[in-house]
């Protein structure tokens, strides 16, 4: 697997361009995101991999426009972000559904905040729910859904506005392995359908390799590694158990260990 250097050329083609972005929660405090350069071409899925606390969520919020960078800039289609981007859909770490709305109304929330949903929009929401396997549960409230089903609703909600960019913050981290694999496949299908660009944050190497066209490794607020995943698309579920997939995971893991240096080197657990 070839290692490509993080792009440093600010004019590099990228639908999403993160340019030397830095972020401090307090002025004078530590830089939680520190000089990150990254570009995502339109239609690609990039994964951000790193230990918890390394600044992944913060970087994702910068890409969403929920936080504004203390240094550098974030551009979407060439335009610098000044606030939450209307072109982006965000899937939070917890499903963040509204308990008092049905699954269908939760999916329709982005629409209903703008206008009364039309029949066509309601049909589109039902269609999205069907695509994530919840056709029969549209009227259920979140409390009557399992964890995996809630995550599916959250993904459907992020996709209802057909966003150009999908930002996902460890959306499947709390789910069991089987459900997680199903949701990964759903996500790949849905992204392929509209050619959606995505930035997916995870701490799971397998997840990053399975989903990503490219994987960036983050540590201490910096991007320390970037690798292109040379696996063909569409990726069949059985790919996860092939030697070539295992080799890609191992290579990434070794790269992460190598980066951490011998002092903090730990046996692979």
């Amino acid at each position, binding site marked *: 697997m070839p290692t490509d250097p993080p792009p440093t050329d600010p004019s590099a083609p990228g639908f999403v361009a993160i340019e030397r972005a830095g972020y401090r929660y307090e002025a004078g405090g530590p830089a939680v995101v520190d000089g990150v350069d990254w570009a995502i071409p339109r239609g690609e899925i990039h994964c951000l991999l790193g230990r918890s606390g390394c600044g992944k969520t913060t970087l994702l919020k910068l890409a969403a426009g929920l936080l504004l960078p203390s240094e550098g800039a974030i551009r979407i289609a060439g335009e610098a972000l000044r606030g939450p981007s209307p072109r982006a859909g965000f899937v*939070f*770490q917890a499903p963040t559904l*509204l308990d008092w709305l049905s699954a269908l109304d939760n999916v329709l929330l982005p629409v209903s*905040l703008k206008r009364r949903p039309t029949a066509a929009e309601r049909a589109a929401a039902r269609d999205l729910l069907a695509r994530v396997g919840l056709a029969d549960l549209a009227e259920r409230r979140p409390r009557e859904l399992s964890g995996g089903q809630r995550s599916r609703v959250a993904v459907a909600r992020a996709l209802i506005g057909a966003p150009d960019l999908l930002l996902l913050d460890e959306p499947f981290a709390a789910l069991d392995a089987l459900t997680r694999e199903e949701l990964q496949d759903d996500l790949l299908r849905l992204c392929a359908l509209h050619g959606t660009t995505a930035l997916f944050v995870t701490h799971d190497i397998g997840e990053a390799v399975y989903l990503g066209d490219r994987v960036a490794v983050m540590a201490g607020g910096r991007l320390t590694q970037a690798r292109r995943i040379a696996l063909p698309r569409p990726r069949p579920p059985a790919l996860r158990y092939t030697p070539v997939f295992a080799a890609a995971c191992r290579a990434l893991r070794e790269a992460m260990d190598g980066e951490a240096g011998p002092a903090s080197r730990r046996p692979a657990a």
Partner: protein
Amino acid sequence: MTARLPSLLLLLILLAGWEGWCRFGGLSPLVLPPPSAVLATLGGEIASGRLWPHLAVTAAEMGLGLGIGALVGLGTGILLAEVPALSRLLRPYVLASQLVPKLALGPLFIIWFGFGMTPTIVITALICFFPLMETTLTGLGEVDAARRDLFRMLGASRLQTLLRLKLPAALPVIMAGLRVAVVLALVGAVVGEFIGGRSGLGASIIAAQSVMDSSLIFALFIVITALGMLLYEAVRLVERRVLHRFSKG
């Protein structure tokens, strides 16, 4: 019903014990009237129709005081939650206003508003204001950051975030405040009447006291308790309806 049977049985035992103590304990009925006398008095008050106007006055004071106090408390809570600068400015004053014993303001309110229902309604409203304001402020502040980020991401206006996220999410906490306010409203209305009432259940207690009619006082206790329980259950009903709509399903 079967669940309430033991409670009911206990009540009967207690009443029987009370009755026996009055009859055979040589206690003056002036100090503690037997339940049979209290019930007879209560029956007489109901039959003669003397009770109803007083009940109506107290219920009206309670309802109006609770309604006004709760609405103003809710509004103030929303305002302070939405404008933190205002909250920082006004919190000490709001707190101080709550630490003033409001019943002690009764005589002042009589000077301002005269005798009658108004001073009692004002006192009741002042008492009900605080639990609603406090729970609204707390509830609105507790809405989790991820859901607020979600609404920002969706481009929701401030008003939309308030009406479609914060208020529904805070509703269980606010309703708990309302329940507390109901109990306080009854105390406010009855004690308010002690100070300046011409009519109402509290005023009737003072009148009964001046003629040493302790069985009438007990009869009025029963009416007041029943009124309180009725209103409390009404609020519980509203709460269940609202929470059903806004939370579980």
